[in-house]
C-alpha cells in the first residue's frame, strides 16, 4: 500500500462528510469549520504523496537548548499581553535570540552533512 493512500482516503472521507453537512445544514458555520479541517487533512495527504524519503544519513541533534527556550519565550510573550510591556519585550528579545541559536544549529548540521 502506498504511503499516501490512507491519508488521501481520510481526507476524501472528511470532504464527503463536510459536503453532506453543506447540503443538510441551514447554517454555514458548521460546514465551513468542517471544510477547513478537511483542507488541513488534504495538506497532510499531499505531504504524504509528495514527500521524499531521506536518502543519506542525516545528522540528528541530541541537544537544542534554543528550541526548549523558544517555548519559554512564546509563553513570556503571551503572558506579557497581560502583565505589561516589559515582559513582552523580554519575551520578544528571548524569542529572537533563541531563533538565532536554532538557525545556527541548523546551519552547523548542514555543514557537517
Amino acid at each position, binding site marked *: 500500500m502506498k504511503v499516501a493512500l*490512507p491519508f488521501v482516503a481520510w481526507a476524501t472521507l472528511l470532504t464527503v462528510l463536510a459536503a453532506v453537512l453543506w447540503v443538510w445544514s441551514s447554517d454555514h458555520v458548521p460546514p465551513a469549520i468542517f471544510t477547513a479541517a478537511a483542507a488541513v487533512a488534504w495538506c*497532510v495527504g499531499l505531504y504524504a504523496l509528495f*514527500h521524499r524519503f531521506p536518502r*543519506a544519513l542525516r*545528522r540528528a541533534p541530541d541537544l537544542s*537548548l534554543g528550541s526548549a527556550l523558544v517555548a519559554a519565550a512564546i509563553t513570556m510573550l503571551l503572558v506579557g499581553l497581560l502583565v505589561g510591556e516589559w515582559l513582552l519585550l523580554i519575551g520578544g528579545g528571548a524569542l529572537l535570540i533563541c531563533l538565532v541559536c536554532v538557525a545556527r544549529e541548523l546551519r552547523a548540521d548542514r555543514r557537517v552533512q
Partner: protein
Amino acid sequence: MSVLAVPRRASLIGWIGSTDHKRIGVRVGTYAFGFFLLSGAFALVMRTELARPGLQIVSENTYNELFTMHGSGMFFLVMAPLALALGIYFVPLQIGASDIAWPRLALIGDWLIPLGGLTMFSGFLTDHGAAKDGWTAFAPLSDISRSPGYGMDLWIFGGILATAGVMLLAISVLTTIIRFRAPGMTMLRLPVFTWSMIATCLLVIASFPALIVALSLLFVDRHFSGVYEGASGPVLYQHLFWFYGHPVVYVIFFPFIGAVAEVVAVFSRRRFFGYHALVLSLLVFAALSMSVWAHHMFATGRVTNQYFSLTSTILLVPAGVEYFDLIGTMIGGSILLSTAMLFAVGFIVLFLIGGLTGIIVASPPLDYHVHDTFFVVGHFHYTIFAGSLFGFFAAVYYWYPKVTGRMLREGLGKLQFLLYFVGANLTFFPMLVSGYEGMPRRVADYENIHDLSLMNMLSTIGAFTIALGTLVFLWNLRVSSRTPVPAGNDPWEGHTLEWWTTSPPPPHNFDSLPPVRSYTPLYDRRLGET
C-alpha cells in the same frame, strides 16, 4: 536513516534541551502525570464537598475554580499529553527508526505543555482567582463582565500553549511514520499501536486548531470587541470549541486502544486478530469522530440534529469492529492475566459502559433530558477515566520494563487494578443514576431528594478508593526503583520491534534490525525458531 551526535553527560541543560524522542516522551509523561495528581486532588476536594447535602468544605467560588481546573487540567495537560507521550516514545521504536522527524519542533511542543499548565494554574495567584467557567468556558459566561480578572485570561493562554504543544508533538510523530520507517516496514506492516497514533495525530492536526482559534477570539472578545456577542456569538464559540472538544475524546482514546490491542495480543500469545479491519475502522472512526461535535449542542436548538445524531450513532460500527477484534484476539489465545492484561480487560469492559451511555446522549430526545446533568459527567468519566486511563495503565505496566529496564511489581499492580476497578464503578455509576434523577452538574450543593445523598456518598467513597489505588501505584514505582528487578530486553515475548532492542533503548535505538515481513516481526521470528 540518521545518526545521532555523541551523547552528552546527563546535566540540567541536557535534561531540558535533549531532543532524544525517548527523553521527550518521558518528560511529557512525567509532568502530565504530575498534573494528573494535582487535578485528581481537586476532584477529591470536590467529591468531599458533595459527599452530603449542606456540607461547605470550600466556598462556591472555590468549587467553581476547582471543577474548572480539574477538567481543564485533565484534558489539556494530562490525557492528551499522555497519549502523545506514548506515541513520541514508542512509535520510532515500533517502526525501526533511530529518531523522530523534526526533533526541535517536538522539543518546543514538549515544553509548551508544562508552561501552558503553569500559566493556567497561576490564575490561582491572581486577585479574582483562577478561571471558574468550566473547562468549556462558554461565551458569554467567560466574557470580561461575567468573568473579570486575569485568571480567565491566563486560562486562555494556558489552553492555547498546551494545545499548540500537543499539535507540535503530533506533527512530529506523524511525519516520523511517513518518512522514517525501517526497510520492509510498509504501511500494512505497521504495528497496531502505530496505526492508532496515525489516527490520533490526524485528529490532532485537523481539529486542535479550532480550539486555538476559539480561545484567541475569546481573548479578543474579552478585551477589544464583541466577537461572541449577539444571538449567534455563543453558538459560534460552541461550534469552534466542540470541534476540538469532541475529537479530543478520541485523541485520548485511540492511543490507548492501540496499546490495549498490543497488550491483548501479547498476553493472549497470538497475533492480533482482524488487523486490516482494525486499521480501516480506526481511519473511519477518526473521520466520523470529526463529524459529530454538535451533538454536544442539541439543547441549543441551533444545530442540524438529524446529521449529528446520525453520525454519532454510526460511530458504533467502527467501535464495534474494534471490540470484535479485541475479543477475537483473546478467543483461542493462551491468556496470561498479568497486570497489563487486567487493565486492558478493564479498559474493554469500562469503555463499553461509556460507549453505551453515549448512545443515550447521541439521541436528541434523550439528550434533552440528561443535558447538563451528572449523567453526562458519569458518561464521559466512564470513557476517559474508566476507559482511557485504564488503557494508559495497561500501557504503563506493559512498557515500563522497556523504558526503565526494571519490572514493576505484579502484586502491587493487581492491587492497584482492583482498587481502580472498584473505585471507578463506585464513583461513576452513581453519577449516571443521580444525573438521570435530575442532579445538575457544576453545583456545590444539592437538595436531598430521591436518593441523591446516597449516590453522592457512594461516589465520594469511590473517589477515595481511586486515590488509594494511585498511592499504590506510586508505591510500586518507589519499590521498583529502590529494589530493581532487571527486565531484560523482552520480558513479555513481545511481537513488535521495540522489544528487539535493549531495555532501556540506546540513544540511537537499534544496533541491528530483524527482517520485517509482517506487523509482528518478532512473533514471526519466534515462530521460525520453533
